């Protein structure tokens, strides 16, 4: 929990954006350990594979390949904006925390659902199969879109 929240703060406040990306990876890893604690190992492994293995590495490689000064420098924020951001974040956390503490959520202490990856697989491949197909299309479209965006720009440059 400390790893998750601390790394999240590091991700946003680190001077160099490389360290910020590493902080983000740490925070995502913390969330994965929380998934393990919740008795959801399949989701935890999926989180590590996709977020740390793909997203964090994607961000790191983008930052390192472009390697420009403006990417890594911390853009100055006015103190008013910073104060407003801190107040907004704190207000949201406080409101949610008061709401959570006010309910009886803390009485749930037993993990009642012991779904294994077999159940998840059954659910995905039977009832949610259309969602899976649409998701595959969305993923393919996003990859094609990302490649097209960077390619079109390169052709513009050579002309």
């Amino acid at each position, binding site marked *: *929990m400390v790893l*998750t929240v601390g790394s*999240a703060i590091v*991700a*946003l406040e680190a001077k160099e954006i490389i360290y*910020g990306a590493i902080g*983000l990876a740490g*925070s*995502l890893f913390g*969330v994965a350990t*929380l*998934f393990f604690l*919740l*008795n959801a190992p399949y*989701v935890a492994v*999926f*989180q590590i594979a*996709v*977020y740390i293995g*793909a*997203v964090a590495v994607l*961000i790191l490689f*983008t*930052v390192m390949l*472009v390697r*420009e000064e*403006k*990417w890594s420098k*911390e853009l100055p*924020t006015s103190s008013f*904006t910073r104060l*407003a*951001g801190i107040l*907004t*974040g704190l207000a*949201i*956390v406080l409101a949610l*925390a008061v709401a*959570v503490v006010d309910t009886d*959520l*803390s009485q*749930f202490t037993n*993990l*009642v659902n012991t*779904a*294994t990856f077999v*159940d*998840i697989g*059954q659910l995905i491949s039977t009832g*949610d199969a259309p969602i899976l197909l649409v*998701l595959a299309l*969305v*993923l393919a479209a*996003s990859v094609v*879109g*990302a*490649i097209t*965006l*960077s390619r079109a*720009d390169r052709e513009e440059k050579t002309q």
Partner: protein
Amino acid sequence: MNSLSDFVLVSAMLFGIGVYGLVTKRNALRLLFAVELMINAANLNFVAFGQYLPFESGAQTLAPNALGQTFVLFSIALAAAEAAVILAIVVVAYRLHKDVDVSELNSMEG
């Protein structure tokens, strides 16, 4: 660290940090980080509620409830696609404007 409210509180903290980042940061990559943190807070909530609360719908006969975990799997895949597209957009915007400051990217303003 073993009741439902603990996980929900961690999720609330992550969400608050994400909102703070969205409000204050001007670097486009930092905004992406903040959005990822908020998505993770939501995912954590889904899994926590799905694992702790009993499943009481008579329509579905799946005894162990995997709905929360399944939803989060889809959500993670969508977030990965979104991150790839945002990174491509940021790279193109940087090549066009030589800047990643989102308050400077105003050429599409009406």
